[in-house]
């Protein structure tokens, strides 16, 4: 029998190793898996690479993980959101590494990892600093940069409904990076507002098929980032 439901947040993040690449869903405050991040904080792994669009806000969740010195490197498109004070302090002090990636390239690189694509040519960033050191190639009369897949050891994502096979739906634009990150990690962990019986999510309405999901934990009243 397939049962991806785990009984606790601790079980959901168990086994994340030091040095792991952790993909974290969310855009701004929407879609951030706050409870899973808190569980990761408690879990204790260190030297992490965190891939996420923004670099945390305030002093909670991702920002807290960084403030604890647990994050070696951030891969993101926009680390300078309102309130990204922790990241800015660490960056200014040279205590955290940043790989800045254009937002669409960030998403496409994770999609490539999930879809078995070894690399792709994108017009984004051609002629800019973010293409420096990368192969540029003219294809069909246009210049493109070669970008490589970005794979996670773990993805932490926030869903709305889930079932024991790991099928997921999302709430409105909280969907953002989650379906792509689910494809791109060796172990994908979803917190869902509600776990429903198998078959309750109509097949045509499943957004992330369970094949991409390894663990599901129910979090009925998820916190917004920054909420204590």
């Amino acid at each position, binding site marked *: 029998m397939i049962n991806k439901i785990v009984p606790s947040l601790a079980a959901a993040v168990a086994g994340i190793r030091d040095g792991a690449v952790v993909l974290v869903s969310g*855009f*701004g*405050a*929407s*879609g951030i898996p706050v409870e899973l991040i808190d569980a990761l904080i408690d879990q204790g792994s260190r030297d992490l690479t965190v891939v996420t669009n923004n*670099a945390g806000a305030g002093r909670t969740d991702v920002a807290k993980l960084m403030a604890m010195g647990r994050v070696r490197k951030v891969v993101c*498109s*926009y*680390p*300078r*959101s*309102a309130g990204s004070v922790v*990241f*800015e302090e660490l*960056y*200014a002090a040279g205590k955290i590494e*940043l790989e*800045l*990636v*254009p*937002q*669409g*390239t960030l*998403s*496409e690189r*994770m*999609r490539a990892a999930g879809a078995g694509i070894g690399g792709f040519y*994108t*017009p*984004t*960033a*051609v*002629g*800019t*600093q*973010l293409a420096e050191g990368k192969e540029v190639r003219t294809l069909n009369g246009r210049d493109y940069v070669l970008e490589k897949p970005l794979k996670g050891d773990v993805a932490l994502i926030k869903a709305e409904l889930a079932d024991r096979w790991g099928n997921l739906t999302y*709430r*409105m*634009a*909280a*969907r*953002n*990076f*989650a*379906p*792509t990150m689910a494809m791109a990690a060796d172990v994908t962990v979803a917190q869902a507002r509600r776990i429903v019986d198998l078959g309750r999510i109509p097949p045509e309405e499943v*957004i992330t098929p369970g094949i991409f999901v390894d663990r599901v934990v129910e979090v009925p009243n998820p916190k*917004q980032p920054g909420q204590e």
Partner: protein
Amino acid sequence: MAAKPLTRDEIARRVGRDIPDGAYVNLGIGLPTLAANYVPADREVVYHSENGILGMGPAPKPGQQDPDLINAGKQPITLLPGASIFHHTDAFAMIRGGHIDLALLGAMQVGANGDLANWSTGDEKFPPAVGGAMDLGAGAASVWVLMEHTTKDGAPKILERCTYPLTAAGVVDRIYTNLAVIDVTQDGLVVREVVAGLEFSELQKKTGAALRLANDWRAIQV
């Protein structure tokens, strides 16, 4: 008559008039987002957001904000009938694939060759942040820049070549400033409209690249 630069609202109003009926439009943070308020009521425009939304409507009434309905600037939005939700990778497939008819973006500098600089001053004190700017610059079918004509210190933001790090090369089609409306053409910058009372020679002085006044130029109407 003394020239009176446009206010931010007036720039937005001027741009709103040019957004075509039926267009798929991505709005940058700030001034570009304002422009949506001034599209004539008989036009239907579909607004796109990088976080997976098409069909954004006006801001919600206070107390009706939904934390999972926000635009790229993280402001709360509403959905119009006909709206759709999709994931980030699809949102950027729309951008990169040329499906967005028009991106309205802010800028720090624009080159006479259409180069766009709007993500970094190169100041290493601050961590760099790019968001979706490079994707939009490279991918949108048309790019219009909305900005003040000069910096707060009066330095020109329109230059022969950008001095700040580029966002995308040769992509800007049109520039709306508080002083003028300027097309970026293969033959250089062509001034279509000038704020009332401003001499062309004055405009040229505030601009770091050669301007040419269109034969059919006129005063900006707002």
